[in-house]
């Protein structure tokens, strides 16, 4: 239905969001290609098909607002404003990576733009995000925190503990369940009792809104409303965004546990294509649409090439950033 309003769309705003979605996808496509070339060193979890969540949420955040993400966090990180070159360098384990090559894809973070980290532990960022909001509130800040997690994460205890905490302390947190239907290779619904993320949030006293996560315009509208509420001090809100993971769990997972027909149908439901249709309806020219795609692809191919030409971190950096006290080098001898 939000789509029906296509002809009323603000072309500048949504054009920029289309561009961002293209950039996210192009970044991940470049990363997947680079992994085949042995350049990406560890596992990566692509968010291809899920870009509208990242773009629609982050468009409504200020740079100063904070964001915490998941193991599938490239899109969120880019949408929050991180430098894709630094990100690609991180995936390649190079100097100048967002984390100096120490973290890799699953620990990507850019505190400079308020992106407080992916996390390798499912659900672990829910309490941390809640605490970040707690910290902001204690300091009288008007910034808010957004915490994105997957549908699988709602079956971990920290989901309950974190949401309850956010309600009890009336914290400014937007919880976003990015529901792609899968917990790695398992269909989440088979492992989930009851009505899912929204029902659980409501049982904890947190208002919940469900949205088609492949409809950028809908995600944007819901995020705007939720964030406005949070900014007026109403406490936490949960958004449940239904989407689909087009790739396997990791870039190398063939995902044979789901029928090809299902994936094909979901490809038709691509959030980028859907936004393109809406923008076309709103009068955006085909040439402009194509340009957005082309530019993004070029940018990320370029970036991958630059990342490839970047130095490795100095081995001695392994001993820094551990802690102030004590000599981390201390071996037995």
């Amino acid at each position, binding site marked *: 239905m939000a789509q029906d309003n296509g002809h009323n769309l603000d072309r500048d705003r949504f054009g920029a969001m289309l561009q961002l979605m293209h950039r996210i996808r192009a970044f991940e496509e470049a990363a997947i290609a680079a992994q085949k070339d042995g350049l990406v*060193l*560890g*596992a990566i979890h692509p968010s291809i098909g899920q870009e509208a969540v990242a773009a629609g949420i982050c468009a409504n955040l200020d740079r100063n607002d904070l964001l915490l993400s998941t193991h599938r966090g490239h899109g969120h990180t880019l949408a929050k404003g991180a430098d894709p070159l630094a990100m690609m360098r*991180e995936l390649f*384990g*190079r100097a100048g*990576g967002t*984390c100096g*090559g*120490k*973290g*890799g894809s*699953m*620990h990507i973070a850019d505190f400079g733009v308020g992106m407080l980290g992916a*996390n*390798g*532990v*499912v*659900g672990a960022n829910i309490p941390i995000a809640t605490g970040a909001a707690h910290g902001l509130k204690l300091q009288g800040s008007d910034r808010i925190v957004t915490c994105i997690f997957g549908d*699988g*994460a709602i*079956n*971990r*205890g920290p989901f309950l503990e974190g949401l309850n905490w956010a309600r009890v302390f009336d914290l400014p947190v937007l919880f976003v369940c990015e529901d792609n239907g899968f*917990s*790695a*290779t*398992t269909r989440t619904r*088979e*492992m*989930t009792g009851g009505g899912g993320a929204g029902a659980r949030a409501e049982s904890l006293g947190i208002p919940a809104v469900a949205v088609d996560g492949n409809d950028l315009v809908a995600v944007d509208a819901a995020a705007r409303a939720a964030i406005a509420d949070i900014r007026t001090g109403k406490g936490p809100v949960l958004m449940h965004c239904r989407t689909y993971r087009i790739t396997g769990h990791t870039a190398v997972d063939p995902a044979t*546990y789901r029928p090809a027909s299902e994936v094909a149908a979901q490809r038709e439901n691509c959030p980028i294509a859907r936004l393109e249709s809406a923008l076309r309806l709103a009068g955006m020219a085909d040439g402009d649409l194509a340009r957005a795609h082309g530019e993004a692809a070029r940018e990320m191919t370029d970036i991958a090439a630059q990342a490839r030409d970047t130095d*490795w*971190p*100095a*081995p*001695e*950096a*392994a*001993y820094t950033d*551990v802690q102030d006290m*004590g000599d*981390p*080098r*201390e*071996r*037995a*001898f």
Partner: protein
Amino acid sequence: MATDTYLNAGRRAVIEEMQRDGSVWALGEDLGRGGVFGQYKGLQEMFGTSRIADTPISEACIMGAAVGAAMTGTRPIVEMRFSDFALCAVDELVNQAAKARFMFGGQMRVPMVVREPIGMWRSSAAQHSQSLEAWYAHIPGLVVVTPSTPADNLGLLKSAIRNDDPVVYLEHKNLWVLEGDLPDGEHLVPLGEAAIARAGDAVTIVTWSAMRHVCLIAAETLSAQGVEVEVIDLRTLWPWDRDTVFGSVQRTGRLLVVQESVSVAGFGAEIAASVAEALHHDLKAPVRRLGAPRIPIAYAPALEDRARVSQESIIDAVRGLIAPRTAA
């Protein structure tokens, strides 16, 4: 005698024990699709969804439910995926599983095996690379096993499943693809017995898990140079095989402990301290440990390698131990 991988050896152990004993079952995330590494491949087809149970992403409940299921007469095999995620279930393992038999005055037992793949696996970074065997060795009530070869993974996992107390079973991710001979018939390796992976008289190297293989390579190099080291693979860390270790050190007079995990407060300290306490007067050189520095494990290879014990550092350490003593 067939050649197969460490991964398939573990898989075979599960199959054999599940066929032998209807009370054995396995639970964990994604087991129906074979588990993260394929250790459970095809098992759900063989044994059904009840005995090879897919679970929610609920590590605390996976571990806690196993405790309850063990108390009621089943023998669960818990799959933790990466040992790092077992940190989401420590109360359940340490406060509950390990202590229940004792706290309740021996009214029942908690026969369960907790499989936790450990170790560095290229560029897995800080939350997917840890080896915390020292923690478990410190906890009364737990048995701790670290298989290093396909045959041992077969024989030790079978013994672990038959054990009536909780066993923390730490397979090493880098060893999944390792090939080796597997005996054809029933193959049980008793818990608590070390293996002498290589005999020698110059230095006793005590090690476990993947480091066994690095030590053996170093030993070959040393052998070519005329130094024959004895490599003892502990296999079980609790109870560890004092007799084999002490017997060897009594012969060689020299001990090097080699571990992948952080050296500080690592299990190697237990071995080194025990030998220093018991065999001080037999030692021809100070005991010595090699392990990781006290740093989280990084993603970039050059950094990650700083946390690795290399063949070279083992060779250096052995040379140091056999060098004539110079003024301090």
